[in-house]
């Protein structure tokens, strides 16, 4: 109950800035069993919104709901309301347009079994782009952005699915950027990536923040501290609290469980 109240309080304060995504009282069930209950929060434009919490907190389910992936997941049901740019996402006539505005990077890198070039050109092509020069431009820009261009520029025609794990993750990021999304969602992207690459990607995210909104789900609280403007703490299917990252990490929490988690007492 406490958590819901705080979230709503946070929401009131946000009304002044422009909210990109507004989540109200969202509950997610799989074949009836709730994975996440009563979440309310806002994601503002051009912020990095961190979500931390241990495994099975409902973080990934939450991301799936934002992207309407419940449509493709057997047994998954979302209740409550989610608005994107002020539009309730469960009442869109073209849900694919929503997804094309949200780029997603998974915990495990997925290089599609296409060439590196086609991996990045796929989203623009899906959007109907045919012009070779434009595509070339997007491919180069996105790969550069994702800090992968220098490593692959001489073999754009080799298979993306055969790159190393770290490279595939950067390819995935390049692919997400090629959608020219408003929102970039990263779900524990550093799990399959070495520390050096992780730092390089984090630098990229800091730059990207000026152009788009980033939702960063991470199991590394330090990463949230480094990158997120505001952070939500999820625990066992509940959003415990949402606050400014600096507040949470300086101990100004509303729920002691948040402090315990951040200080590494559990999770």
């Amino acid at each position, binding site marked *: 109950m406490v958590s819901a109240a705080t979230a709503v309080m946070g929401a009131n304060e946000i009304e002044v800035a422009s909210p990109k995504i507004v989540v109200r009282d969202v509950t997610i069930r799989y074949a009836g069993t709730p994975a996440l209950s009563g979440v309310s929060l806002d994601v503002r434009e051009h912020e990095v919104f961190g979500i931390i919490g241990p495994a099975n907190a409902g973080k990934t389910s939450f991301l799936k709901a934002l992207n309407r992936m419940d449509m493709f997941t057997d047994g998954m049901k979302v209740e409550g309301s989610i608005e994107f740019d002020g539009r309730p996402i469960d009442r869109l006539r073209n849900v694919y347009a929503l997804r*094309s505005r949200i*780029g*997603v990077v998974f915990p495990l890198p997925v*290089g599609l079994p*296409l060439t590196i070039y086609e991996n990045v050109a*796929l989203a623009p092509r899906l*959007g109907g782009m045919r012009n070779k020069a434009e595509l070339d431009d997007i491919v180069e820009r996105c790969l550069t952005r994702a800090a992968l261009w220098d490593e692959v520029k001489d073999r754009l025609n080799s298979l993306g*699915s*055969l790159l190393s794990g770290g490279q595939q993750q950067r390819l*995935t990021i390049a692919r997400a950027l090629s959608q020219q999304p408003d929102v970039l969602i990263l779900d524990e992207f550093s799990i399959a990536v070495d520390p050096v690459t992780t730092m390089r990607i984090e630098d990229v995210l800091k730059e990207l923040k000026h152009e788009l909104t980033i939702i960063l789900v991470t199991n590394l609280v330090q990463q949230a501290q480094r990158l997120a403007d505001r952070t939500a703490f999820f625990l066992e299917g509940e959003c415990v609290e949402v606050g400014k990252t600096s507040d949470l990490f300086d101990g100004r929490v509303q729920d002691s469980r948040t402090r315990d988690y951040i200080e590494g007492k559990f999770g």
Partner: protein
Amino acid sequence: MFEASELNLRNKRTESLYRTLFLVMTLLLILPVLLILGTLIVKGASAISWEFLFGYPKDGMTAGGIFPALVGTIWLVSVALLVSVPLGVAAAIYLNEYAGENWFTRIINLAIINLAGVPSIVHALFGVGAFVIFFGFGTSILAASLTLAIMTLPVVIVSTRESLRAVPMAFREACWNMGATRWQTIRRVVLPNAVPGILTGVILEVSRTTGETAPIMFTGAAFFLPFLPESVFDQTMALSLHLFVVSTQVPNVPENLPYGVALVLIGMVLLMNSLSIALRMYLRGKKKW
């Protein structure tokens, strides 16, 4: 210590005994068939000649060639494929890409199992009742091929489904997350990686269809026709039926003639199957992820 090793030795001996037993059972299953195939080759080879393959039957089918039967089989198989491949691939795409696991797909699966399990002669009766009589196609290539297509539909569905399944789910999810529709995902990522697998299934189906006899006996294949079919509404000879005819229905056939027909038929079938297996192995060695 000593006891243990004695036990070990005994175990080893029973072990190799069982191994040999099962090896012998396997060989008893395979060797007779290989012997029979050998006999077919030895006895049939003398019949095979240029004139045999490209000539017409002569003297009441006791001499001459099998050309009209060969051409007829190609007609029957091609028309059957035109129906069963699109239908089978569609069914597999529906089951694997669009439908979830529910009572409806369960019924479809049961239907597939039954199509594969119903005796070929019952398919023949269906072909007569539905295509020859009800739809009025008469005994024709069209009626026979439709019957064959429905009968071998499960082959296409099962193999297509298997190759679709081999494409990891993560690829689909990645595409969906980008805003791709199911069909865009299938066309751009799933199908390109499944087509070679589907192709092996299609070759397998060609082989199955080539050998079928009962379903075409009353629906479109004729014992003897002195000319080649010109459209799907004509009757035709077929290689499989020709083997039945020359070995049971025609008196005074020289011994090597039916052997020759059997050899050509089995050669075609095994060639297709080997091709399909070779393609499958080649693909297995060429991983794309």
